[in-house]
Structures are given as structure tokens and as C-alpha cells.
């Protein structure tokens, strides 16, 4: 696992479902093919209603400089992030857009599993309502081992919840590497 994650925040609200993260019309791309994987980055978050895109102001585009990669590296969400459809294309879309981690109050379970087991983005949980305290565009620094999130722009700091029992899977890089490490699968 990376020891420090830095980047610009893109802030979303509560109940961001996987149809908003990657609309169904783009699920025809096959994420196992590298040239199609990057297309998920292009359409990531494309069904988030404009007023909810990049809080607190809203109407902030997720991409401006690059067609595939977002200008932002860390997603801040509210409650129940990633609810709805089981599509693994959702954490894939965030990963393909260059997102390194999501920090939300809690996750819908399939999105959480897919993020961890596929090794796409690290789903951190926060006891604080950061989606109302961090602004889109703020520079963030996350000390992963200490679970300490710093808003470099404002100087504020927050302690995140420990990753807990999924840490060994995240450390290994996903469920396959973890299963090999613990001897469940042959190397």
C-alpha cells in the first residue's frame, strides 16, 4: 500500500450510486481489455447531476485537461457511497480516471468489496462529515499508516477510521494476491 496519498479533492454528496459513477450505456466496454479500461475513466461520474458535481458549488467538471484522466485524485463522499448496481465498472471508472482513494462516511457493500478485492481505489471511512468541510479543489495529504487526512489548503486535519480487517487484502493489492499470500491459491 502507498504510505502517502496526495492530490486534489473532488467532493460529492450522499448516496452516490453506481449508475451515477458509470452510466449503464458505457458498460458495453470490457474492463479486461486495456484499451477499453481507459474508456471508463472518460465517462467516470458522467451521470452525477450537475448541481451535485464538485461540491459545495456544484457544476464543476470532473475532467478538463485530459479526456480520460480527471483533474482530481481523491473523492470525498457522504453516506452510502457506491450504492445500487453491483457493476465493478464503478471502482474501475474511478481508478481509470486517476482516483487514488475515496473518503466517505460509509459504503454500500458491493462497491466496498469490489474496490478492495479488485485493488482499484482504497475506500477509507471517516467519522466526520467531510463532504461539508472540504471544498472541491482543496489540496489533500493522506498519511495512510496514521489514517491522518490533512487539508493542505486550509490546514485542517482529520483522523479517519482504521481500514480494519480488509487491510491485509488492500496491502496485498486485491483478493487474488491475498489468496496467494495466505496459501489459498498457488503462486
Amino acid at each position, binding site marked *: 500500500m502507498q504510505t502517502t496519498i496526495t492530490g486534489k479533492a473532488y467532493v460529492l454528496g450522499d448516496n452516490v450510486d453506481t449508475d451515477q459513477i458509470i452510466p*449503464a*450505456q458505457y458498460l458495453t466496454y470490457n*474492463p479486461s481489455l486495456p484499451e477499453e479500461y481507459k474508456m471508463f475513466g472518460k465517462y467516470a461520474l458522467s451521470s452525477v447531476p450537475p448541481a451535485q458535481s464538485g461540491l459545495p458549488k456544484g457544476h464543476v467538471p470532473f475532467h478538463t485537461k485530459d479526456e480520460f484522466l480527471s483533474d482530481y485524485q481523491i473523492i470525498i463522499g457522504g453516506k*452510502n457511497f457506491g450504492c445500487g*448496481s453491483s457493476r465493478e465498472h464503478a471502482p474501475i471508472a474511478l481508478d481509470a480516471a486517476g482516483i487514488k482513494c475515496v473518503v466517505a462516511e460509509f459504503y454500500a457493500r458491493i462497491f466496498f468489496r469490489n474496490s478492495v*478485492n479488485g485493488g482499484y481505489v482504497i475506500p477509507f471511512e471517516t467519522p466526520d462529515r467531510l463532504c461539508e468541510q472540504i471544498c472541491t479543489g482543496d489540496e489533500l495529504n493522506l498519511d495512510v499508516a496514521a489514517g491522518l487526512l490533512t487539508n493542505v489548503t486550509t490546514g485542517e486535519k482529520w483522523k479517519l477510521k482504521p481500514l480494519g480487517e480488509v487491510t491485509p487484502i488492500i496491502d496485498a493489492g486485491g483478493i487474488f494476491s491475498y489468496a496467494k499470500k495466505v496459501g*489459498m491459491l498457488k503462486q
Partner: protein
Amino acid sequence: MPAMTMTEKILARHADKASVEPGDNIWVDTDILMTHDVCGPGTIGVFKHHFGNGAKVWDREKVVIIPDHYIFTEDKMANRNVDTLRQFVKEQNLPYYYDVGTDKYKGVCHIALPEEGHTRPGEVLFGTDSHTCTAGAFGEFATGIGNTDAGFVLGTGKLWLKVPPTMRFVFHGDLPPYLMAKDLILAVIGDIGCDGATYKAMEFDGDGVFALNIEERMTLCNMVIEAGGKNGVIAPDQVTLDYVNARNKSKKPYQVVNSDAGAKFCFEKVYDVSKLEPVIAKPHSPDNKATVSEVKGTKLDRAYIGSCTGGKMTDFRAAARILNGHSVKIDTFIVPATSEIAKGLKLESINGQTLEQIFLAAGAKIGEPSCAACLGGPSDTFGRLNTPISCISTTNRNFPGRMGHKEAKVFLASPLTVAASALAGTIADPRDCLQ
């Protein structure tokens, strides 16, 4: 041994443990793995990447592949994905594949699974689709997973799970003729919220549940994911067993599992179904509950009856009761979930008119069995909301963009309420049509 809920008992048995407790992380054995055209290609990619191009699936009798999402479309990528499934089935010589363009084609996977005898009490079913929870209606543990997890299962037959605590929802009383299982589950989701059951099992119990037919029980379990539930489950009774035994593939043996007396539930809520009203979920969340009477008269542009949760025979029978002899005022789309249901529309009749004749005479359009516009899909999908219109639908989700255009408004309701609204052109109460 401590008393366990049926979800705990099924998981313990599949982990080869005498007992489990909520919060335990366990590896469980899989009875059936289901995938479809949207997540199948990714799953196959994960499997081949990690186990090798020449690797064989762990048990070909336990893999079921059902193309259903993007079927009747000119979209080249969507058709390519079905070819990917076809190729894999050939390589692996899989017996349970329901191919497009053949007489084996079924349609929506969650209805095709039980129709084709792949759902049995006491089993563990994983599917690469969040509505896999539908099969909990047969007294099994069924939940949705992603491509990586499914690729792992394809190679090993195993998956790690955290044992969920169980919430219990008890329905008592006689269901009035103007209410359906959809009203019950929308009421539950509205009451506990779209995160109210996150990481939890939802068990449905009470005489009000056991009075429902198997399709209505599937509607209840189908939408537990809309409250964040990991699985929904209903204890098997004679209705379940009659259905399962008539269809069970290869007469595979199974074991009925019930919650123990004294099992611990983390939450309990009791409903008197005789006192409930028709319920609707307003845009843009399935927990945005209102009674139909509160939003009656809201203008609509379209009505849609279909999907795994709202496109079964019971759903069409209900809609036909209301539409029979009348004309719809707005575009109305009928999408049978499976080919078996499509045939049923031609066979079953009310007063000498088949359901199909009733729908066509009312001015509705009937599509081919598939997921169709429930989740938007390619732009040429039957019934897709390509413009920002208002639609009332028997489907299970109304998130922004779910049925197509991200500014379209989707209201979720029972087939009775949707049919009544199709006749009025505005949200209407089925009680006004069922005199």
C-alpha cells in the same frame, strides 16, 4: 449450538462450521455462480488472467450464464460481449447457457434462474448482478458480487464473506386487492432508508408473506439491495417446494433451512398489511417514499411495466385487470422478463382476451424479454428515456440517469398503480380503477 438465523445457518454449513456469528469472516462454498452479458466478459477476463487461458472452471454444472441486459440492440460492443460469452461457454463446454437467438433464450437472469431450476432452498448463489438477492425468495443465501469476486469463484468455487446480522420484517394480515408486494417493499425501503440494511440480511416473515405467491416473494427479496441489504430471505414453505420441485435441474438434492427459535435479530419491524396504502418512490431514490394519494395527479409522459421486479406473470395479470377495455393516455411499454412470461401473455386470458390482446387493445407497446430500459442501456433500447421526461415504472431503481436521460424523472410503483396511471396520464390510485 447457539440459535442462528437462516442466513447464518446456510453460511455456517457452506463454511463447514458448526456455527457462525454476525461479523465473522468466512470462506464459503458456492452452489451456483451466475453471470450475464454486462459483467460476464469482465469476469471471464479476470478468470483467464489469474488462472490462465487454458484453465477450467471449478465445476461446470455450477456455472449459469444468462445474457439478458443488452440483447435487442444494434450496438456492436454489446453484441461483441454476447460473442465473448458464447466463446467461453464453448471452451468450457458449459451446460447452462441461454443463448440469444435460440429457443433456449430466456431473458432477465433473476427470473430465468428459478424458471430453469437453478434456485434451491439452503444453497449459496452468487451472481454478478446486485438483484441476485431475488433468489432469497427460495430460502437460499443469494447476493450480488463484482467481476473480480466472480472470477475468483469461477476458479475456486469459494468466496470470503462477512456474516451479516439479520433484520426481521413481519407482515401480518390480509393484503387488500389494491396492494402488491411492491407496495410492501417500497414501504420498508422508505421506512428504513436506502442505507437502512447496509451489510445486513433482511428476513421476511409472517402470514402476510406466506400468503404471497412465489413471484410476489421474489419482488420482496429483489429490492432488499435498494435498502443496502446483503441478502433477502424467506423461509421455504409448500409454495416454495412445489415450485422448486417442479423445476429443479437434475433433481439435485437440497436441504430446507429455517431460522432457529431464539435466533437473534438485530432489528424487527411488524406491518399490518391490511392497513397499508399504495406506495410510490419519487425521483431520484427508491427510499423517497410517498403514498400514491399524496402525489395523485402528478403529470407523466410514460409508463413502463417490466424488469426482474416488475415483469412477471403476476405483475402483468395485475396490470391487465386495470387496462382491460380501456385506452392508455401516455406511451406505455410492456416488457416481459423472460420468454416463458412472453408466452404466458399469449396464453393467459381474462374474459376471453389474452393479456397480450388486452395490452395491445389498450394501446401499449410490447417488447422482447430482456432487462430493456430498466437500466437505460444503449440508445436504441426499447422504452429507454432518451429525453428528460417523467416515467412511472414497475422497475427497482430511480437514481439519476438510471433509465437513460439523467434529468428524466422516474417514479417507482406497483403494476396496479402504473397501469392506473397509464390510463390517467397522471399518477393515479388503483383503488379508483378497481371498483
